[in-house]
């Protein structure tokens, strides 16, 4: 079975390019050119140089004594939190902004939820001298205000998305609308493995630097050729796609995707798209997302703004249906507790998104010989306020 996108942009029944005619030429231009540009040695060298010298790759694979002791297996943390910008998002934005320049585009537009992708896009644009506009839901602008200020300091224009639920899905809608209104000179840097073909495949390829490094790091540290598990959180699913990529065709490697169950899977405040969603068409792609019977998109909820998206990328929908990846649901509280525990016991404050992947470990039946890689996709500095509020409320309850 192949987990690569087919020539029409589909992963099994999922994917494709469901965009209005105004965007068709842009998306088609990208689909026709992205593979050639990404395969060009000059492009590869330039990207490799920036990822190394500018973004700080390769990132360490760190064996966590605390987690290994807790679960009785070898738990290794892939430290994407140590990337410049504070998360894995920079892997993709450097790639796409370089690619936009190759296509002769003059301006960049992006969407952001927690702000990680927005910050990483603003950094790539500052570095590569491209004007940058970032749409961010009005609600997210409040809860992730330091990232708004960061983007502005980096020279980006931050535009509040005021439609709908005023979160990531609406910021994505607004970025699409911006692109429709500026189709000729603007390039849309999508931050996850979502959107019309070729975005899901292109973003997965840019993020696949994560699993590519793991191919060398795992044997070096453990003596095993392959890990037994790779665990990552899934909002749209970019760090998961990048962590899984080179292991997709190794069925012995179990791929675990941690989705945000919010206040509980059936609480009405959740973002677990594979559990609660069904197939439909959103943001230019056919995938699974949470919706009403009538096909209206439901608002997602997660304590982590980065996972607060009602859908998942089409690759993940396909990995779910084929059983290639196992999806687990992690609540707000489980993630917060896992994040606080890692901070206290290992001196690493994880992003709340990544804390979902840490909490998922508790749902696996690990054996002592198991080698488990957890993608620590981002650092928790941006989440300080949420951590403080949560700790305070826990103390007052006890």
């Amino acid at each position, binding site marked *: 079975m192949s987990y690569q996108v087919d020539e029409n942009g589909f992963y099994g029944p999922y994917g494709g390019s*469901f965009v209005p*005619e105004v965007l068709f030429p842009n998306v088609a231009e990208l689909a026709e050119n992205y593979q050639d540009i990404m395969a060009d040695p000059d492009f590869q060298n330039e990207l490799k140089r920036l990822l190394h010298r500018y973004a700080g790759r390769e990132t360490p694979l760190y064996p966590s004594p605390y987690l290994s002791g807790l679960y009785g297996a070898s738990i290794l943390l892939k430290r994407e939190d140590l990337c410049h910008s504070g998360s894995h998002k920079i892997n993709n934005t450097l790639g796409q902004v370089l690619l936009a320049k190759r296509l002769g585009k003059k301006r960049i537009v992006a969407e952001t939820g927690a702000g990680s992708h927005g910050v990483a896009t603003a950094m790539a644009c500052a570095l590569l001298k491209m004007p940058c506009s970032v749409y961010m839901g009005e609600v997210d602008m409040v809860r992730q205000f330091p990232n708004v200020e960061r983007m502005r300091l980096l020279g980006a224009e931050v535009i509040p998305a005021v*439609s709908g639920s005023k979160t990531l899905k609406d910021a994505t*809608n607004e970025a*699409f*609308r911006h692109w*429709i209104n500026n189709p000729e000179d603007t390039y849309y840097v999508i931050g996850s493995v979502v959107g019309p073909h070729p975005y899901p495949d292109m973003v997965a390829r840019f993020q696949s630097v994560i699993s590519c490094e793991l191919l060398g790091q795992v044997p070096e540290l453990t003596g095993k050729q392959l890990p037994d598990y790779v665990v990552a959180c899934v909002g749209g699913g970019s760090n998961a796609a990048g962590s899984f990529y080179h292991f997709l065709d190794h069925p012995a490697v179990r791929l675990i995707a941690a989705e945000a169950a919010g206040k509980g899977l059936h609480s009405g405040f959740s973002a677990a798209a594979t559990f609660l969603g069904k197939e439909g*068409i959103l943001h*230019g792609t056919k995938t699974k997302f949470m919706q009403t019977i009538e*096909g209206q998109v439901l608002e997602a909820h997660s304590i982590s703004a980065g996972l607060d998206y009602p859908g998942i990328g089409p690759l993940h929908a396909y990995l779910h249906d084929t059983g290639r990846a196992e999806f687990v649901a992690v609540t707000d509280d489980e993630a917060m507790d896992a994040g606080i525990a890692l901070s206290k016991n290992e001196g690493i404050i994880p992003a709340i998104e990544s804390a979902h992947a840490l909490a998922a470990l508790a749902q696996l039946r690990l054996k002592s010989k198991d080698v488990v890689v957890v993608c620590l996709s981002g650092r928790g500095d941006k989440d300080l306020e949420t951590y403080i509020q949560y700790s305070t409320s826990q103390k007052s309850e006890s």
Partner: protein
Amino acid sequence: MSMLHENRLSEIFRSSRKKLSIYLTAGYPKLQDTVPLLEILQNSEIDFVEIGIPFSDSIMDGPVILHSHQVALENGMTIDLLFDQLAEIRDYISIPIVLMGSMNPVYQYGFEKFCRQCGKIGIDGLLLPDLPLIEFKRHYSTFYRQNNLASVFMISPQTSEERLAQIDEATEGFLYAVSSSSTTGASNKMEDSQSYFEQLQIRNFRNPVVVGFNIKTKEDISFVNQYVDGVIVGSAFVQILEGGFDQERIVEFIAGLKGCQ
């Protein structure tokens, strides 16, 4: 594969008179306003009507139509309800009706069932801006044909020559040309798109061409009609409903649009 549908749409385009079409959102401003609006539009001698099916996340639309979708959904509008409202309309509404909307609500309803309902009621055309041509041909064109639904597609100033030919071939009824690359209700001037309209005029399309997006005044209409077969007014019409259903105001607005025809 010329399979011209003989329905109300093809019939009105047999005359060379310029067409004026109005877009309204189903269930807006109030849930039960859909049919009364159709009656006013027919009485005002509008040539055909587009009824928008509201969607929570339409990326094609600007603030005015987005707001109408949101209100319509809050009012409780659904496809089932719309079909109920339209069930008997062919007893008294004879102008062609095109349904328009984002793909997902139709997909969830069931594409085939949706087309069958349209056929039963007497809907004349269907326009789903995010339905790709390739998907239409592969999976859905049969359902249109079986139910005598004209397949309306959009073209834009960005559409290549090669693709214009493909779209023209797959289209029945009329080609919906967007006046410029924008979401609905933007403020682009029609004069800025003159060279595009000229290209549309000299191209020998199989289908009539109707221009929509950002047409607000009778001046816009008479300018655009120099080049194409008609126009669609959407956001400007939806905007006059914002204060509520006011028959006098609607009639006056339409009269204002038709003034120079």
